[in-house]
Each structure stands twice: as C-alpha cells, then as structure tokens.
C-alpha cells in the first residue's frame, strides 16, 4: 500500500495536494479500516499526491465536545491545529463526517483554517472530472442500493446530493427510505452516543433505522460515515440479514466498481 505521511513529504521538501484525515474509526476500527484502504486505493489510482498524518494524527475532539468536555476538545483541537499548521496544510479530505464537521466548522475559531472536503464530495468531483472511470460497468446494474444520510453530512452541513450522485454513477437502482435527506433518521451514534450504551427506551435507534432501510428492499445499504457503518451493520446483524444485505461505504462501492 502506497501511503506517504506528511513527515515523509516534508523530508523530501514536497507538498502534497491534499491531506487525507483518516480519523480514529478509520485508523482503529476493523470495518472502517477497510473503507480507509478502499479510499486510499482510489486516491492512488487517480495519481493524486496525498498524505496522511500517520501517528501524528489524533482525535479531533468531536465526541469530547459533544459529551460536554470542552477542555478536552480544545486541547485536542489546539494540538491538531499546531501539527496541521506546522505542515502548512491547506486542503483536507476525510471519510468521517464527524471529523469533517469539526475540522471545517469548529477549527477556524481556534486558528485552524483549511479547505475541508468530505470524501463524498471528493469522490463526486473525481467522477465529474473523469479521474475516476467506472470501467467495470454493469455489475451494479439493477442492484438496489439505499443511501443512509449521515446527520453530520446532511443536516449539519447540507450535503445531501454528493453521495447520491456518486451512487448514481454506479448505474445502480437508488431507492430512498421514507425518512431521507433533511428528515433522515439518525443511526443513533452521533453526539458521542457511539461511546456509550443508549439511555433506556423501547428500541435502539440503529434497529429502527435498519428496519427503515430493509423496508426499501435494497440489498446494499450505502453509508458515508464510519459510525453509521457500525450502527447499520449491527442493525442488519440483529435482524439476521447479513447474508442478504451488505452495508458499504460509498468509497468501497466505487473501489469495487473500479475493480480496485
């Protein structure tokens, strides 16, 4: 795998076009790591000069801030901003909507100003620019895919169409859930819920959302967020549908269609 760190680029005296912010899930979670690899394969195939921070990357602080620990958030943010500014980073792409939101909307106030792009938008641009050519073609034809909106991409940042355009490029049969776009139902992991058991209730949110996804009859649930990935995968397992229904990140679907 051809992945160069920011430190290595700097040692060569070169600046990459874009920094790929991997995020904690993309670095440590086994399922999300496969998304990271798929995205790296796509980047490598396009020949884009990119870098990662490697072990210099740390949590953006999103879950700490949302759980109310502002000190911890700002400690993380300030440290990350020092590293990013130290390398003169201008442009960041990330596959995690939570990292995306924090880097884009919350770091500027603390001195971190970057062009931040989520991989859904990034992939859409690559497809539009003809840098990603979906040669395989046909393998997705007629495959029913439903897209689950990530709250931090959708409502939080008004990105609803980019991931859908990416999926449309696959020539698949895109079906919508009843709640979608601005009214999309959360997977249940946002606001630091990912890191604790839910409060007492009648049902888990991810089960409710999975039921809505399964009701579409799609055999692929497309996601664009590592937390949604975990929640929806758990939901599908809970419904004992993992043999028929796959939960995939949009980057994985593009890599698959490209034959990477």
């Amino acid at each position, binding site marked *: 795998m051809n992945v160069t760190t920011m430190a290595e680029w700097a040692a060569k005296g070169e600046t990459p076009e874009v920094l790929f912010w991997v995020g904690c899930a993309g670095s*440590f979670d086994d399922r999300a790591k496969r998304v990271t690899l798929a995205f790296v394969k796509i980047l490598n195939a396009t020949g884009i000069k990119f870098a990662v921070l490697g072990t210099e990357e740390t949590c953006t602080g999103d879950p700490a801030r949302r759980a109310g620990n502002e000190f911890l958030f700002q400690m993380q943010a300030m440290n990350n901003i020092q590293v990013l500014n130290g390398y003169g980073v201008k442009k960041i792409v990330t596959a995690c909507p939570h990292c995306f939101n924090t880097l884009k909307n919350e770091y500027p106030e603390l001195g971190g100003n970057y062009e931040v792009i989520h991989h859904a938008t990034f992939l859409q641009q690559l497809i539009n620019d003809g840098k990603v050519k979906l040669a395989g073609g046909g393998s997705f034809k007629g495959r029913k895919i439903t897209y689950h909106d990530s709250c931090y991409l959708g409502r939080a940042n008004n990105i609803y169409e980019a991931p859908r355009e990416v999926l449309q490029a696959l020539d698949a049969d895109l079906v919508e859930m009843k709640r979608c776009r601005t009214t999309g139902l959360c997977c249940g992991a946002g606001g630091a819920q990912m890191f604790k058991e839910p409060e007492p209730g009648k049902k888990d949110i991810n089960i409710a959302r999975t039921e809505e996804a399964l009701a579409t009859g799609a055999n692929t649930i497309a996601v664009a967020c590592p937390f949604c990935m975990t929640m929806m995968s758990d939901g599908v397992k809970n419904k004992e549908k993992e043999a028929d229904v796959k939960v995939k990140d949009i980057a994985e679907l593009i890599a698959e269609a490209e034959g990477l």
Partner: protein
Amino acid sequence: MAIVQQIVFLATLGIAGYLIRKRVLRIRGNILLGKDASITDRKDQRLKNMLLVAFGQKKMFKRWIPATLHFFIYAGFLIINLEVLEFIIDGLAGTHRIFAPVLGGAYNFLMNGFEFLAVAVLAACVIFLIRRNVLKLPRFHSAEMTRWPRMDANLILCIEIALMFAILFMNASDQLLQSRGHEHYTPTGPLFFSSFFMPVLQSLSTTGLEVVERFCWWFHIVGILGFSVYITYSKHLHIFLAFPNTYYATLEAKGHINNMPVVTAEVKSMLGLAPAPAAPAMPGRFGAKDINDLSWNNLMAAYSCTECGRCTSECPANLTGKRLSPRKIMMDVRDRMEDVGKSIEKGGPGLNDGKTLLGDYITKEEINACTSCNACVEACPVLINPLEIILELRRFQAMEESSSPQQWNSMFQNIETSFAPWKFPASDRFNWAK
C-alpha cells in the same frame, strides 16, 4: 349613553394596556436573566431569515396541509387586526365605522376580504380542534403535553372561533340595521359571508339588533384585548416572538457548536501558546445548570415555542422511547423562567429557590439521550435550537460535576491517554497501512 360607552372603552383599553405592559416587562426581565450575548453580525442575512421563515412561513410549508390552515389563521390575524384600528378609533371617539364614508367602495372590498379571512380562520380552527381532539395526532399527546398545554391549545382555538363569530354576527346585524334605514349605521355595501347569518337575526326588533350589534362589537374588541393578555401567559406568544427568534437564530452550519472562549484562553496558556490570563476573569459556570447560565436568546426561544411538537416527532431518541423530548426541553426552560419570575415578583428568592433547571426540571437521562443529529433544529418552523441548550447542560455535567455517564468518562480518558476515543495504543494508529 354614548359617552358612557366611550368611558368604559377607554377604561378597558387602559386596563388591558396595563396588564399587557406588566407581563411584557416580566417576560423581558425573565429573558434578561440569561447571559449576555451580543448578536450584531450579518444583519442582512438575519433580516432575510426573519422575512422568509417568520413572515413568509417558509419552514411551515414542509407539511403543506397544516401549513395552509395555519397560513389562513396567520393572515387572518395580521389583516383582520387592521380592523381593530377602526374599533379603537370608534370606541374612543364614539363614532361608528369611521372609515366607511372615507374609503367608500374600498371599505366594502376590505370588509368582504376580512369576512373571507374570518371564515377561513374559523374553518382552520375547527379543523385544528378536530386534529387535536378527535384524530388525536400523536405529537399533541406525548408525555409533556399534560393538562395545561393541551387546554392552552384548545382555549386559543376556541377563543379565535368565538372572535370570528362575533365579527360575522356583528356585520350581519349591522347590515340588517342598515337595511332598516337606521341612520347611525353607515352603509357598508353588501357583505357576502355575514349575509348568511342575517336570516337568523331577521326576526329581531331594531332595538334587538342594536343590542346584538353592540354586544358583538364589545365581545370582539374586549375579546381581542383579553386574548392579548392571555397570550402573554400562553404558548401562543410565538405570534410575536417568532420574529425576533428567527432574526437572532444562529447563522452557522447546524453542525457547529458554540466555542467557549474562556476555555480557549486557558488551553492556550496550558500549551504555552499564550500567557496565562492576567487575572482569570471569573468564568462563572462552565455550561449551564440553571436558566441564568443560558444566553438570553436561548431563553427567548423558549417563549417563542408554540409546542407544536414537530421537533419531538422527528427526534430519534424520542421515537425509540427515550425520555428526551426537545419540546419538553423548551417547555421546561420556559416553566423555570416563569417560576423564577413569579418568585422575583413576590420578592421571593428567585433563582435561589433551591431548584435548578438541570435536576428539578430536566433530568440527565434526557440530555444524555441526545444524538446531536439536529433533526429537532431542522424541524422547528421558527428556528428554535433545543440542541444548544442540551449541550450547555452537558457541559455543566462534564466540566463542573464530572458526572457524565461512566462510559463517557472512559472515552474522555482514552482521548487523554491514547488520543482516540477507544483504548488503542497511539502508536498503532498507522497500522492500517501495513
């Protein structure tokens, strides 16, 4: 006789004015219990938001059936109240329909327009009553919709219906009096909708008609004045506060959370990026435990809430049976303000009554159930942001009390020690590429 009416009218107007002024000052005082926040930026965009969202009801039209019905009531409220101007002049001057001779044909056109709106308001209110009480839409009957909030909503609708009937019966009797050549009743030209009520009154004597006309006139104007006083105690305040609330609503992306500059100063000094703040200005509290820890615009939002429940009906936590309801958060903030305000009015302890917003009104179970998904914020037709309040309460829980759920405390610890919310060694972060 006429002069007696004028004096009674002036007195009524004075009493209503006094009561409204008193309540407005109380509400203003309650809102100003909140923290100072200067919101003076991007005035053009704010004005645009207010015109589109409050005046133009843009967000209501996501659900077009209630939106259309609501629009009739809203337009009726705005436009029929123009007639109140005439009522007040007539009441004070002892005249009758002072604008009729001045406006001529236009007066007839206007009155017919008002009557159309009156009928539309009537119909909309009846349908709304049916939706609430017969169809029992779930969002009007969830846990926090206890007796008073439900009665409040029904009262508002019933009062509006009664006011509209008063207009129609007043116009009907007025037309009959005109047709009988009563000189006091200036010709208005035919009025379409109220003419349907004329047969009911036809058999009355001229004196009887005068009594009906006067009764309806007084009922309508005293009703409107009384309703204005009532509104200040009711959820119906949104008719005024939706405007400032949409103006002052955040313009940031919904995913953005307000920064805490006090923390920034401290973190910078800890990291050696800035000298320690000379005399650490007493930061007050981190986050919010009570209403005075929230900013004034959060408090104003609570008075702007009309308890429609669109937020709660979209909340993933609420939908799956958790205690959290964004509407309840807003209702609790308001209840707390009212309780504190009442206490202050009586010379009582006010905020120091031994109760606090977090704990006595809102529980931790509620705030800890929020996924910060912004569904409630997106759903609110008047740009109320319950999430901002939930987050301030969580900040208090985490930073003042260190009483976050155990698993969150572990997550904090993991971030502190291994720079990730999970307990993996930081040195393994790049292993995915191997």
